[in-house]
């Protein structure tokens, strides 16, 4: 379970963009902030809704449904209505491909 899964070529995600992928039975959101790639579970901790529908500004992703904010590097919840962090996945880049490890 703990291996890395190939998600997409790095070229598929642009700076400040957030995209959602299906990795086995998980939904993983991947974004690019200051040239680095970050991955997290594509689900707001407040309600089971996709964060990838929202916007990312700097390292903060905002859920478009109820306005919760999270830090994509740490997963930390930054404002109400969210009170719990989101799950962060480890990312690895190899040969211009993004790999994600499901915890």
């Amino acid at each position: 379970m703990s291996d890395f899964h190939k998600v997409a070529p790095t070229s598929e995600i642009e700076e400040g963009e957030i995209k959602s992928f299906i990795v086995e039975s998980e939904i993983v959101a991947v974004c690019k902030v200051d040239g680095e790639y970050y991955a997290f579970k594509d689900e707001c901790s407040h309600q089971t809704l996709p964060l990838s529908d929202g916007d990312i500004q700097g390292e903060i992703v905002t859920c478009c449904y109820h306005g919760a904010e999270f830090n994509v590097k740490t997963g930390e919840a930054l404002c109400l209505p969210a009170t719990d962090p989101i799950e962060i996945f480890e990312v690895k880049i190899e040969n211009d491909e993004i790999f994600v490890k499901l915890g």
Partner: protein
Amino acid sequence: MAIEFNNKVESYVNGLPEFQKTYFKEIPSWLSDIKNEAIKSFSKLGFPTPLDEDWRFTNLAPISRNSFQIASNGISEVNKESIDKFSIPSLDCHKLIFVNGRYVSDLSDIKSDADGIVIKSLKEALNSDKDLVEKHLGKYAEYKNDAFISLNTAYFEDGVFVYVPKSKIAEKPVYVLNISTNEEAQSLVNPRNLVIVEDNAEVKVVEHYVSTAQNVYLSNVVTEFVLGENANAEHYMLELESKKAFNISTLRIQQKRSSNIKSHSILLGGAIVRNNVHPVLNGEGCNSDIFGLYLPKDRQHMDNFMRVEHASPHCDSRQFYNGILDDKARGVFHGRIVVHEGAMLTDAKQTNRNLLLSDTAQIDTKPQLEIYNYDVKCTHGATIGQMDDEAIFYLKSRGIPNKEARRIMLQSFTNETLESMSLEPVRESMENLILEWFEESFANK
């Protein structure tokens, strides 16, 4: 050519004519009509999202955004030995084997039972028991407003058909083993079962789902139970599929006066599992007992959705759902008791208890009462907690080692739902699997 589906609802609509041509030599027009109606409903409904209240805690994107194709027959992978490996030991039964959703008569073993009892593949029954099938199939499992039932209705090919005529008792249980094999592409199977139990008749049916490999695929099951007056039935749903599989199942029970149903769902396998149980108590004096046990671990997601409809007076229903969650697992319990206007003197009780073994596991529970009648006694309760430290301390003070004490505690918790099983061998076999589950869980701590 394989019939393929992608993340677009249209692909499911477009595949249907080809599917009917390929898998039915001569499809009766009434069935073809139902299938066409069903896919129309599906195209209207699409896959549910967490914005649908009934799917609030379960995100189906891994299913709706995935690609699937109708499974090949995969029989070469299965033989007598592999069947013995999966089957429940020492269960004296009518054994029906389905591989990738298709009946395999060579591997099955249907014994002779009381006169007039019919146990066979549904596909066969479409011809041999045409009138009965036409009368009941799709009449209870409402495909008009449920996406998965509509998908199953459109794309089912086979399943089990059981008919127990008036006052007959099926001595041996009907055991249905569904095996999914190692496919190259992600496959979709839609088993469809129909069980008709006439007045004063009796039957037990065991549905068992397993996989030969750790594959991603979708099983979308629909089972309809039709109970006549004073009929007795027991149903088992044993979900032991690959930890990457998706399993959506719906058990729809239609009850007439004084009939009794006892249903057990044991969820151990699967990545995303949704188990729907929906009895309608449509006649005075019905009894409906529903038991559920779910043990998700790793990243498993198990969603129990139950709706009990009291449509007639003097009916009793009991629901007991217990869950143990470990690792990053997620459990959902959604139970609703609906008491309709005329259903006087309803007695309904619902309990959901949960144990969390890890801080990363999550449980969402929604026990609900919807009542339109004043003369009722309805209660529900839910608890969430962890193993009782004091009880463990007590056991330890009596010389029982810690691990053993923990095992005893968990076992007593799971036994609350297991002990109601009347089929001893099924219960034992489940107990053993659950013990293995505990061992694994303790070993990781």
